[in-house]
């Protein structure tokens, strides 16, 4: 490992590191615009100049590889003057519009000009001005502010895998644009807003909403998919103004999908803010007491098997736990399920339903087989990891089931179940790749588990076991869930076999929908309770509506598809008369005179941890060994894996209520219409 001296401090850095990284190891801050540790090196902003002994000119530290014995200075007069010069050039064409720029207050150029900027300009010619470019409904462009760092160009090409942004023309006329000014066709597009060091690319929905110093920042967890991306929720008063990613190398690195970032305006619309009861076929607003009384009048005396509880896709663990307690203690029932469509889950062992390889180790994979899943839409962040693996080691990707563009090349091997049987019989293309693979990964989606789930799961397990890829060092078996509540619900064992038949059974008298909007309920001869944050199709057919809190409005645990428990904090509070969901269930148990004795969130957590210690280990991957994993022999079957359309922008009720998501969907439709084939 080369040793270099930075301002007299000797540091040792790995071979292939850059001088800039060496300076950071030595604790020296190097200003930069174009350099970004997760993107390729461009070296075009020149802000990171440092002085190097035996070099007559200052060197761009971001692009200079470290060599043994280099002596670097970062604080000499020469460095300061060089950076001042660079800054002066950058500011020549940068407009002085910080007061009307959304980046103001969190702008790299603004910050660094405080240190390296000169107080007046020597430039007397006309500044250039650049026409705004259309980049879709999320990205607002003010291209005159652009300093051509090309971070957005590199992001689109490398991370997002949609090489649609580029720099056209040259010299003074260089402009950043999308090809023929089309919408950026990516689910990660809005990350270029964070990457842009100036105010050239800013957020369109958040335009002129607030200044960064006015916002209250709360660290939380995203619930739009089962990835559990780490987010920061920025609120001003009650309103959630924006959602930004938090760095977590094990999950989302520092990216966030467009839905996670921009569905937050759905938190302001379509909200349930007061209880409703249905009288003479019409929903009427009422008080909590009336609603509770209405419920108990209607369902008192029913036996446990007459109830069914459906848990929705955005529900936190505490609420689900409370729901389970409510069903057990108050209604003496265990008819609860978290699924909205019937897909196979084997809760007997953790490895059977988790993303066992873990998201971060996906990078090591040299073969990925997708079984009935479209990771681009179902888990955008995981798709970005697969792409990262593909870029790093040319990972071969196969898909069973046609899933469209995934942003990296893959081979579709048809959608028949027999494709799996073929690998098991040591035949075919996938087996040939598997033979030479060292770290293969099988990812099974909910579509893959829907019609003949047991066969798919057991066959994949057997394939991996036969080839010795199912051990405690490398577990290539991955289930990709779609919903944030899924794994938590499986941990709580909220599963009921044949639950759809039960739900449609005529003997069923009451259905309690806990934020369950996707499940289809026939409102015939049933008393339907809907508890949730947003009004949707299921709240319309409900007899009672109990307004609950959305994910930013309560503290709660969420378990992502890896089985990682994460704590989401309360950033805001429920609107109007709405209450946090566990409190509603607690109050309702009072009405039935069978009080669940939990009065604070803390006690709720203690109870939860006592009954399910698995939730105690927050932020950690579950320690799972495959020692006790059982295998089953399944008979081969015919048929196909059916990939159901996944409506990315409308996949849950918050996103469906969001105006921004609606615009995104329309933009996407226009893109597909005019598309690349006119």
């Amino acid at each position, binding site marked *: 490992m080369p040793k270099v001296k930075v301002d007299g401090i000797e540091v040792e850095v790995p071979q292939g590191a850059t001088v800039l990284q060496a300076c950071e190891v030595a604790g020296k801050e190097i200003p930069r615009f174009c350099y970004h540790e997760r993107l390729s090196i461009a070296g075009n902003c020149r802000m990171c100049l440092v002085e190097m002994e035996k070099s007559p000119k200052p060197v761009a530290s971001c692009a200079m590889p470290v060599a043994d014995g280099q002596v670097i200075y970062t604080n000499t007069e020469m460095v300061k003057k060089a950076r001042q010069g660079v800054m002066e050039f950058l500011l020549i064409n940068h407009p002085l519009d910080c007061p009307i720029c959304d980046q103001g207050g969190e702008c790299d150029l603004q910050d660094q000009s405080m240190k390296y900027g000169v107080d007046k300009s020597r430039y007397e010619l006309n500044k250039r001005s650049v026409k705004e470019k259309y980049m879709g409904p999320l990205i607002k462009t003010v291209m005159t502010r652009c300093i051509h760092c090309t971070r957005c160009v590199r992001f689109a090409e490398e991370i997002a895998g949609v*090489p649609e942004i*580029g720099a056209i*023309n040259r010299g003074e*006329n260089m402009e950043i644009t999308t*090809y023929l000014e089309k919408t950026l066709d990516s689910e990660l597009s809005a990350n270029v807003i964070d990457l842009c060091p100036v105010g050239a690319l800013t957020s369109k929905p958040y335009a002129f909403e607030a200044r960064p110093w006015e916002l209250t920042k709360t660290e939380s967890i995203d619930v739009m998919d089962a990835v559990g991306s780490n987010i920061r929720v920025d609120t001003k008063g009650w309103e959630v103004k924006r959602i930004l990613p938090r760095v977590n190398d094990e999950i989302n690195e520092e990216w966030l999908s467009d839905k996670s970032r921009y569905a937050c305006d759905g938190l302001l619309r379509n909200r349930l803010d007061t209880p409703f009861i249905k009288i003479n076929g019409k929903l009427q607003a009422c008080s909590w007491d009336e609603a509770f009384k209405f419920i108990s009048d209607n369902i008192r005396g029913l036996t446990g098997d007459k109830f069914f509880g459906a848990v929705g896709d955005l529900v936190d663990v505490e609420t689900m736990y409370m729901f389970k307690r409510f069903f057990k203690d108050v209604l003496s029932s265990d008819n609860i399920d978290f699924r909205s469509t019937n897909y196979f889950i084997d809760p007997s062992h953790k490895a059977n339903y988790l993303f066992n390889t873990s998201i971060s180790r996906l990078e090591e994979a040299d073969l990925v087989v997708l079984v009935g899943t479209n990771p681009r839409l179902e888990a955008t962040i995981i798709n970005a990891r697969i792409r990262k693996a593909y870029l790093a080691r040319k990972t071969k990707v196969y898909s069973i089931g046609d899933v469209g563009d995934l942003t990296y090349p893959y081979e579709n091997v048809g959608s028949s179940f027999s494709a799996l049987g073929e690998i098991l019989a040591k035949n075919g293309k996938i087996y040939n790749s598997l033979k030479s693979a060292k770290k293969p990964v099988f990812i099974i989606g909910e579509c893959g588990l829907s019609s003949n789930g047991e066969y798919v799961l057991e066959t994949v397990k057997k394939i991996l076991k036969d080839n010795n890829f199912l051990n405690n060092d490398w577990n290539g078996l991955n289930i990709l869930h779609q919903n944030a509540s899924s794994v938590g619900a499986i941990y709580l064992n909220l599963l009921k076999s044949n639950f759809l038949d039960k739900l449609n059974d005529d003997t069923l008298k009451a259905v309690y929908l806990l934020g369950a909007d996707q499940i289809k309920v026939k409102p015939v001869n049933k008393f339907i309770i809907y508890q949730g944050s947003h009004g949707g199709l299921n709240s319309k057919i409900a007899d009672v509506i109990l307004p609950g809190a959305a994910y930013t409005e309560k503290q709660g645990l969420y378990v992502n598809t890896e089985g990682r428990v994460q704590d989401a904090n309360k950033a805001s509070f429920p609107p109007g008369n709405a209450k946090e969901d566990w409190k509603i269930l607690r109050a309702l148990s009072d009405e039935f005179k069978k009080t669940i004795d939990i009065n604070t969130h803390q006690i709720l957590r203690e109870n939860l941890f006592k009954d399910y210690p698995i939730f105690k280990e927050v932020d950690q991957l579950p320690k799972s060994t495959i020692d006790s994993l059982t295998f089953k022999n399944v008979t081969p079957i015919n048929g196909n894996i059916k990939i159901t359309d996944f409506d990315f922008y409308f996949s849950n009720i918050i996103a469906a209520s969001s105006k921004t998501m609606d615009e995104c969907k329309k933009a996407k439709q226009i893109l597909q219409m005019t598309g690349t084939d006119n």
Partner: protein
Amino acid sequence: MSGKHVAKDQPTSFEFNTTNQKRIEEILKKYPPERKKSAVMPLLDLAQRQHNNWIPNAAIKKIGEILGVPYIKVYEVATFYTMYNLAPVGKYFVQVCTTSPCMIRGSGKIVNLCKKYISEKEGKLSEDKNSSWIEVECLGACVSAPMMQINDDFYEDLTVETATKIFEGIKNDKLPKPGSQKGRIGFEPNKRLTLVKN
């Protein structure tokens, strides 16, 4: 100078003709298959030659498809280099060099002639739609300045008289012989040979 002018009226499709398709095959042989995107510049040139000396967006797309390169990357190259035209030019496309040596030798007068004979504004088609002109940077013929390029040919050692003749030739579809307009051969000195006389 401003950014490249891209035509508003674009043809909807573009196909290389059979001769050019054969040429593309030949060009692609020069590069290793995994680096075939290097052929972007010769292909753009082919497209330009086939399509009345300008490249429509449909051709950019076509080239992207042939080379397996994103369209924007081809577009970047096409807008970067000055010799790719992205909007229609005349059948006679006049490029007048106005870099220092030519300027000192009187390229300003040639530019004035262009304005008089072709069009008042640079880059605009003439009234008979037959020709257009632009100013360009050094074309590497400083020794015979001032000069201009018409399509592929250099017209050097220009004077107002000889240039006028050329512009009239453009109008009548009959150009004089390219090269030095005062009969110089090679780069021999203007008056008499000095260095390698014997």
